[in-house]
């Protein structure tokens, strides 16, 4: 039985680790005054950071702001980066803190606005709707996108702690250890949060999608 999921997880995590040395080298160059090196770091990490924030806040404008602030904070705090953790982990932790800070400001109201399917399609990778993808699985894929809209709407309503682990684990392919380092909680806590989040999603989507 093929295990595409496990393969993706491993590849994702290894990708994170594989860039560690390159990141450290770029950080050293940044500290030496090489601004272009930081530009390279931004290029390397912008999609992941932007995507993670977007999955948490689902507001493109806010996502842009928070992502930009994440990188600017990294730029200003680069000297404090010790290299003990991967640069990506450090960057994710900044992003998560940015989102948390923003959520605290908006704690009185529901986080984010409802997103229509069209908006989701517009915001997400349009390759999912590329006619060139039409083939044996095309119909199933489109159906999956509609399911995704429902799923993301339910993710939106999750408890912030659960949402964080779902996003980092399911959408960002980070390992438990990396999530543990980012969220600064034990691995067991990450695991339990993730299990509860999945169970909650399963219950909410039961009878509609599942």
């Amino acid at each position, binding site marked *: 039985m093929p295990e595409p999921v496990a393969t993706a997880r491993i590849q994702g995590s290894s990708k994170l680790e594989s860039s560690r040395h390159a990141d450290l080298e770029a950080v050293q160059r940044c500290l030496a005054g090489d601004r272009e090196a930081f530009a390279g770091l*931004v290029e390397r990490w912008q999609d992941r950071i932007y*995507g993670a924030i977007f999955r948490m806040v689902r507001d493109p404008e806010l996502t842009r702001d928070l992502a*930009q602030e994440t990188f600017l904070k990294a730029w*200003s705090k680069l000297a404090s980066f010790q290299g003990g953790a991967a640069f990506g982990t450090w960057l994710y932790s900044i992003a998560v803190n940015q989102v948390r800070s923003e959520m605290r400001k908006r704690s009185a109201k529901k986080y984010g606005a409802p997103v229509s399917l069209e908006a989701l399609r517009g915001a997400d990778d349009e390759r*999912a709707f590329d006619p060139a993808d039409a083939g044996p699985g095309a119909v199933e894929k489109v159906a*999956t996108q509609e399911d995704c809209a429902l799923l*993301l709407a339910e993710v939106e309503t999750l408890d912030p702690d659960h949402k964080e682990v779902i996003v980092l684990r399911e959408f960002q392919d980070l390992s438990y250890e990396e999530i543990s380092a980012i969220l600064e909680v034990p691995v067991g806590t990450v695991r339990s949060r993730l299990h509860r989040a999945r169970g909650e999603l399963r219950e909410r989507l039961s009878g509609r999608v599942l």
Partner: protein
Amino acid sequence: MTDEFERLIHAELDGEITPDERARLASLIDADPGLAEEARAYRQLGTILRAVPPVAAPAGFADSVMGAAVMADSADGGVAEGDVAGRSNAAPRFRLVRAAPWMALAAGLLIAVAFATRPDERFQSPGTTETAAVDRSARGDSADVKDRAKAVDAGLADALEEGFEAGSELRFRRRVAEQDKERPSEATADAAPQRAATPAPRMPAPRMPAPRKKVGAKDAPAPPATAAAPPESNSAPPRPTPRPTPARKPVTAKSPGAPERTSPPGTAPADTSPAAGEPSTPLAEGDDTASTPDFEKVLDDDRDATRKRGASRDAKRRMPIRYVVFHDVAAAERFAASLSAAVARDAKGKSEVTAERRKPDPGGPDLDDTDPDDTDPDSPDRGSADPGGAGPGGAGPATGGGSERPAADPAASSGRGLAASSARIVARLTIPSARPSVRALLDVPLSDGQWAAAAPPEVRELLARAAEERKDVEDRRRRETADADTADEPEVESERGGVGGGGGVVGVGAGAAAGAGSLSSAAARVTTVEIVIVVVPPPKPTGSKPGR
């Protein structure tokens, strides 16, 4: 059993399930159809989660980040390359930037509330706060400095701009009220040594808005033909580039503030330009040529009225008076309105200005009418302009009440040929001195140098010429003082404080700094200040051209 199922199914979703765990999970599912349904739902959820497409950063995002980083470095100002730690607080907070106007508004409200609610302890009770005020000035109270800077930016600059742009040559004649001259030694004796020992609080050069209409140096008005000219009998050297003032039409209601004049080719057009709209009398600070007899008469009258009021009121509240001299009524009124508006802005709309506008006497000459033919030196316009209304605070006669005093013949006394009878007070504004706009009036040292730093270029040129002319006038005055025929002159000089500064006239020549300090101290002692806006007609050409 359910816990085991949960652990195994999540391990499968995470891709971390071992073959043994997989077999165990299969056995659990086979044994319980409910678990089989749960397993199917979890697997479907996993499928949907994996199907969620990734989100890419928008195009140009990295560039915008780098641009913001560069901005942060620039804002940090001089952080060395590589000193990343030095940029710790330099990253701009874009959403904070969006909130900055609200923060500024909130700060402004707080300041306004603080000013409105704080007891004016700094400006009360001369005997108890004067020393403290001086001490505060000596150590450069930062709050005062900020207040002044804000005042210049927010209020006075606008008002002055109005004056400049109206084509009026604006001149401040700042004079501490009679109490500063006649004040018994009780306050002066206490404060003077401290003032002498402590530097006068100097206002940073006020940032004047650039005039809307630029007038180059070539377009600047020529030196006055008559204002600074010595009497014919005087053997002073001729004035450089004398220019006869062309005849002026009576001012219509359409253009009350800009009497039409024929401008020589190359000069700016009339109406709004200081170079063209006025008769080119550089009323620089301390330029005694601008201390026209009619203006001095107004000052004398005003002083008399102040003295009367002072006996009952100002003894306990030393109210300084600032004279702002205009040539143009409309400009003066605009200045008054601007100053009132500036104070209102300071007070957040709270009405704190006691204004007494002097309307022209219907029977008197038109103040705007500067036609020499219509200016009758004997016309009792100043007295009639003041109906004897209540002064600021409702006490005492108005300033122009010295009309019974015979007007000196300006032409006879100075030979400048000014229309003595048409000088008048346009408005008196009694304003709380704590307001930044007024603090600016009180605290800005109006020496020529200060004005030169603040004024538009064309005004600076005027001031420079005025300084030269003042020097000539000083020389002439000295000669006149030495002359036995000018017996009255020492008294006048003493009362005015002299041309070279000192005395009550502030901002005159070398006495500006000391005067500014004195005014600042005066501002710290009082709760209100009177701004007397005076209009003096521009000098008219006399029959004899000086220097010819």
